[in-house]
C-alpha cells in the first residue's frame, strides 16, 4: 500500500469532511439553540446552490463573489422568513410535529425547484475556482481546498461571535437555559430570529461553495443533510467544534473505508462509528 494513496485518501476525507462540517454548521446552531431538527436543511442547501448557479448563469457573478454579496444576505432573509412563517409556530410542539412541518417545507422547496428548473442536473463551468494542484502524486481540488479554507474561516468567525460578542453570549445563554436567559432579560424571540437567520445563511454559504464543483439538482440536499444530522449528534448539539470534529471524522472514515475496504460499505462505517459513540457517550463527543 503506497503512502501517497493513503495520504490522498486522508486528504480527500478531510476535504469532504469540511463540506459536511459547513453544511452541518448552520443546522447545529438552529438545532442546538431551538431544539428543532430542521429536516428542510438539505433543501435550503439546494436552494443556496440554485441561487449561486443562476446568479452565475444569468448575471455572470462568480460564486466566489456572489457568496458574501448576495447569497448569504438573501439566505439570511430567507431564514428570518422561515422562522416567522414556520418555526415560530412549532417551537413548543412535540418533536413529531416539528418533523412533520420542517419535512413539509423540504418537500415544498424540492417541488418548487423541480417546477422552475426541471429535474435536470446542472453544473457550473468556467468559474474562478476550478482545477487542481498536485505535488508528490497527491492531488487537491482547488475549489475543495478553498472550501476548506472558507469553512475554517466561517467556523472561527462563528466561534468568535458565539464566545466573544454580547449577542453571541446571549445565544449561548439561550442554548443552555431558555428560562434563565429570559429572566436576565434576553429577548428569546429575537435570539431565535437571529439564530435561524445565521443558520440558513451558513447553509447558503455551504451551497454557494459546493456549487463551485458539485452538480445542482432538486433532490441534491438529502445526500448531504443526512450526514449533517449524524455529524451534529456525533459532535454534540450546538457545538461548533463538534460540527468540525464530526465532519472530519465522518469524511476520513468514509474515505478510508471506501479506499481500502469496499466503497459499498463506506457509509456503514460512519453509522457504526456514530452508533458506538452515542451509545458510549450519549451527548456526543463535544457534548456538555
Amino acid at each position, binding site marked *: 500500500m503506497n503512502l501517497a494513496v493513503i495520504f490522498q485518501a486522508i486528504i480527500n476525507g478531510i476535504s469532504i469532511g469540511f463540506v459536511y462540517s459547513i453544511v452541518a454548521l448552520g443546522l447545529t446552531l438552529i438545532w442546538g439553540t431551538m431544539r428543532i431538527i430542521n429536516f428542510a436543511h438539505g433543501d435550503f442547501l439546494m436552494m443556496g446552490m440554485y441561487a449561486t448557479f443562476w446568479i452565475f448563469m444569468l448575471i455572470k457573478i462568480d460564486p466566489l463573489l456572489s457568496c458574501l454579496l448576495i447569497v448569504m444576505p438573501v439566505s439570511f432573509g430567507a431564514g428570518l422568513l422561515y422562522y416567522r412563517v414556520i418555526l415560530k*409556530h412549532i417551537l413548543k410542539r412535540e418533536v413529531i410535529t416539528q418533523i412533520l412541518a420542517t419535512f413539509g417545507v423540504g418537500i415544498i422547496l424540492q417541488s418548487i425547484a423541480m417546477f422552475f428548473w426541471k429535474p435536470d442536473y446542472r453544473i457550473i463551468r468556467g468559474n474562478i475556482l476550478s482545477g487542481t494542484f498536485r505535488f508528490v502524486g497527491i492531488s487537491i481540488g482547488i475549489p475543495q481546498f478553498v472550501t476548506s479554507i472558507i469553512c475554517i474561516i466561517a467556523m472561527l468567525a462563528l466561534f468568535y461571535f458565539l464566545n466573544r460578542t454580547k449577542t453571541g453570549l446571549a445565544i449561548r445563554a439561550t442554548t443552555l437555559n431558555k428560562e434563565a436567559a429570559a429572566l436576565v432579560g434576553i429577548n428569546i424571540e429575537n435570539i431565535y430570529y437571529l439564530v435561524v437567520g445565521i443558520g440558513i445563511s451558513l447553509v447558503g454559504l455551504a451551497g454557494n461553495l459546493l456549487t463551485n464543483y458539485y452538480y445542482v439538482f432538486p433532490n441534491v440536499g438529502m445526500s448531504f443533510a443526512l450526514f449533517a444530522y449524524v455529524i451534529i449528534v456525533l459532535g454534540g448539539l450546538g457545538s461548533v467544534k463538534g460540527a468540525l470534529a464530526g465532519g472530519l471524522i465522518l469524511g476520513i472514515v468514509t474515505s478510508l473505508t471506501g479506499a481500502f475496504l469496499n466503497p459499498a460499505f463506506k457509509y456503514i462505517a460512519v453509522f457504526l462509528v456514530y452508533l458506538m459513540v452515542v451509545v458510549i457517550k450519549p451527548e456526543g463527543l463535544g457534548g456538555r
Partner: protein
Amino acid sequence: MHFSNFQNNKTMKKFILFLIVILIIIFPTIITQPYILHIMIMVFIYAILGGAWNILSGYAGQVSLGNAMFFGLGAYASSVLWLFYNINPWIGMIIGGLFAVAFGIFLGMPVFRLRRQYLAIATIAASQIIMTIFLNWEYVKGASGLALPLMPNSLKHMTFLYGKNGFYFISLAILIFFTFVVFVITKTKLGYYFRTIKEEEDSARSIGINTTQYKLVAISITAFFSAIAGTVYAQYFLYIDPNMVFSLRVSFLIVLISAFGGTATIFGPILGACVLIPINEMARMFFGGAGRGIDLFSFGILILVVAIYRPAGLVSLFYGKEKLAIRENLPGKDGKVDGENENIES
C-alpha cells in the same frame, strides 16, 4: 366538564365508527375498481405501519425515524423463507415478526439510553446500516432484489395474482386485529406506562416503572406488526429490493402518516393513511404526468398546513368539546403564538 354532552358525543362516535367499519367491509362489493382497491390496500398496509410506529413513538415517545428496517426485515424474512426454504408465507410472516422483534430488542438495549432527537438519528443510522447490508448481501440477491413466484390464487400461500379482494381482506383483517390490540394496550397498564415514560422518565421510574424494559416492550410490538405489514407488502408486489423496503422514504412516510393523522391516538395513523395515501396517488394521477413536481408540492403543502394548524393531527377534528377544550389551553393553540408570551417559556 359537561359529562352528558361528553357521553352522547362518545356514543355518536361509536356509531359513526361502526358505520365506517361496515362500509369498509362491504366496500369491495360496491366498488370493484381494482386501482381504488389497490389504494385501499396501500392505505391498510401503511395504516398498520403508522400504527405500529405510533406505539413506540407516539405512546412511548421514543421517536424512531428508521421504522422501515422492521418493515423490510419482515418482508425479506418471509420472502427468503418462501423462496429458498419453501416455508409458507403465513408461517414466514410470524417468523419474520419474531425476527424483527429480536432485532428490535437487540437495537433497543443500547440506543434506548438516548433521548429524543438523539434516538431519532440513531434509528436512522441503524436502518441505513441494515439497508446497506441487504444491498450488498449476495444471499438475498443484493440490489437485484427478490422476485416471488407468480402462482394461481391461494389463500394458503398468501398469493392473489388475480383480483384484489384477497389482499384487501387480509390487510384489513390484520389492520382491525392490530387496532384492537392497540385499543387493549391503551386501556391497560402498558398504555399508561408508555404514556408516563413519554412524559417524564425520572418520575416514571420513581413510581416503579422500569423504563428500559417497557421501551423494549414497545419496540417489540412496533417491530412485530411492522414486519407483518412487510410480509403482506412483499406478497402483494411479489418483488422487493432494499431500496424499496428499507429506504428513508418509507421510514419518513410512516412518520408523516402518523403525525399527520395524530400521534398517540388509536385512529390517528389510520386517518393519516386514509388521507395521505389517496392524496399522494391522486396528486400523481392528475399532476404527475406533467413531470414538474406539482404532485409533490400539493403533498408538502398539505402536511405543512396540518403540522401548523392542527398540531395534534387531523384526528383532533374528531375530539369531543372537552378534549378540545384541553387542547385549546395549550400555549400557542393552533400555532397562533403571540410574540409577547413567546419570551417567557412556561
